[in-house]
C-alpha cells in the first residue's frame, strides 16, 4: 500500500529543566535548527531535511518528560476518517482548531491507554529544507547540516502500562503494522512492541512499565553508520551523558547510540535497519535473547533500558 494514511512522527514536545542547557544540546550539539516563533515560552526546532516548520518543541518545567507527540496524516480527509475511528474505538477526542499550535492546522488529541497524549494533524506550514523543489541539487549550503548531522525525527519509544491495548490501537485503528515484539518467554506477555506506518522498521514503539506516561526516547535519523560514529565523537568531545553505543539493535537492526539531554530525556541517533513492507510477518524476540534483541553486538541487556525514563 502506498503511504496515504498516517505518514510519520511530525512533532515531539518535551519538558526540560534548563532551557539554556537544552538549546546548547539540541541546537549546537545535535545540530537541530531553532525556528523563531513569536510570543511563546516554547522553543521550536527542526532537523535540516524536514520540510515542515518544526518538529521538536521544548518547554522549561520542573520535571522533564513528554508533553505530547504528534503524527502527520496524509490530508484533511484522512484526518476526518481517522478521527472518527479513534472516537469509535472509545477514546475521548479533543478538537484543537487551526492556530492552537504555531504555524499548524487543526489537530485532534487523545490519551493512549498507557497515559501518553497523542495528536494527529494534516497541515503544518511547509518551509522546506533550504533546497529548491526544482533542480534541488543534493547539498545544502555550508552550516545547514551541522552538529551530529541528524536529518529528521525517526521515532519515539514510550513506556507505560496497558501495552497490548496501545499496540492494538495502533494496528487496528491507525493501520500500523506490528513489525517486531519482545515477549516474556514464560508467560508470552508482550514487553515491548515496534510499530510501522511506513517502510521504516519502526515509527513508534512501546515498552511495558507500571507508571503511565513514561518517555523512553526520541530518535533522530542519520544517513550512515559513519555518521553514528561522528555523532559519538561529538558526545565525547562535549561530555554528553551516553547510555550505550555505538552498537546495533537486534530489533530493527539499526545502528544506535543512546544518550541523554541535560535534563535526562533520552535521545538516540539511529541509522540503517531493514525496509519494512506491510506483507512481512511480525518478528518475535523472547527474553531468552533479551540481550541480543536490545544490543546485538555485545548481547548485554542494560538495566537502564528498563528503569531510566522521564
Amino acid at each position, binding site marked *: 500500500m502506498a503511504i496515504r494514511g498516517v505518514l510519520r512522527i511530525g512533532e515531539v514536545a518535551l519538558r526540560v*529543566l534548563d532551557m539554556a542547557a537544552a538549546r546548547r544540546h539540541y541546537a549546537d550539539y545535535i545540530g537541530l535548527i531553532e525556528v523563531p516563533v513569536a510570543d511563546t515560552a516554547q522553543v521550536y526546532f527542526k532537523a535540516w531535511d524536514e520540510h515542515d516548520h518544526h518538529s521538536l518543541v521544548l518547554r522549561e518545567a520542573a520535571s522533564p518528560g513528554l508533553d505530547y507527540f504528534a503524527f502527520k496524516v496524509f490530508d484533511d480527509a484522512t484526518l476526518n476518517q481517522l478521527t472518527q475511528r479513534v472516537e469509535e474505538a472509545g477514546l475521548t477526542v479533543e478538537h484543537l482548531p487551526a492556530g492552537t499550535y504555531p504555524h499548524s492546522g487543526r489537530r485532534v488529541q487523545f490519551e493512549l491507554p498507557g497515559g501518553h497524549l497523542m495528536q494527529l494533524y494534516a497541515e503544518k506550514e511547509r518551509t522546506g529544507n533550504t533546497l529548491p523543489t526544482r533542480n534541488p541539487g543534493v547539498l545544502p549550503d555550508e552550516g545547514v547540516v551541522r552538529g551530529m548531522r541528524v536529518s529528521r525525527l525517526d521515532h519515539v519509544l514510550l513506556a507505560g502500562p496497558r501495552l497490548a491495548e496501545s499496540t492494538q490501537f495502533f494496528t487496528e485503528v491507525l493501520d500500523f503494522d506490528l513489525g517486531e515484539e519482545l515477549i516474556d*518467554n514464560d508467560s508470552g506477555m508482550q514487553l515491548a512492541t515496534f510499530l510501522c506506518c511506513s517502510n521504516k522498521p519502526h515509527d513508534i514503539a512501546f515498552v511495558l512499565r507500571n507508571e503511565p506516561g513514561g518517555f523512553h526516547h526520541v530518535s533522530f535519523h542519520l544517513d550512515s553508520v559513519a555518521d553514528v560514529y561522528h555523532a559519538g565523537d561529538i558526545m565525547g568531545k562535549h561530555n554528553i551523558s551516553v547510555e550505550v553505543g555505538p552498537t546495533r539493535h537486534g530489533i530493527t537492526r539499526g545502528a544506535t547510540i543512546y544518550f*541523554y*539531554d541535560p*535534563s535526562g*530525556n533520552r535521545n538516540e541517533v539511529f541509522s540503517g535497519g531493514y525496509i519494512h513492507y506491510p506483507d512481512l510477518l511480525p518478528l518475535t524476540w523472547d527474553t531468552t535473547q533479551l540481550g541480543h534483541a536490545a544490543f546485538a553486538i555485545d548481547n548485554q541487556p542494560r538495566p*537502564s533500558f528498563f*528503569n*531510566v525514563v*522521564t
Partner: protein
Amino acid sequence: MRFEVLMADTAERFLCEPHQSVLDSMERLNRQDIPVGCRGGGCGVCKVQITHGEYLRRRMSRAHISAADEVAGIGLACCVIPLTNLTLSVVVGPNVPPPQLGAREHS
C-alpha cells in the same frame, strides 16, 4: 579542594573532585556505589539520602525530588555537589528494573 563521600551502608569512601557531582566523581573512579541513570536530574535512579555535610544542588526533577525531600536531605547524586565531606546512603526507589528481565540471559 576535594571532599570525601562516606557511603553509610557499606562504609566505603571515595573522593569528589572540586565542582563535580557525587555521581560524576564516583564514575570517574570506576566505582559502583550508587546506581547510574541519566546523569541529568531527570530519572531519579541515583537517589540518595544525605545525612551529614553540606552541598550545592543542581535542578532536579520534581517528579522524583519534592521540596520536602530537599529539606530532608534527599537528592539525586548526579546533581549533588559537595561543599564539605558528605555521608550518604542509596535510596531504593520505584525505579528498579523488573527482576525477571536479564536474569535468564544465559539460561
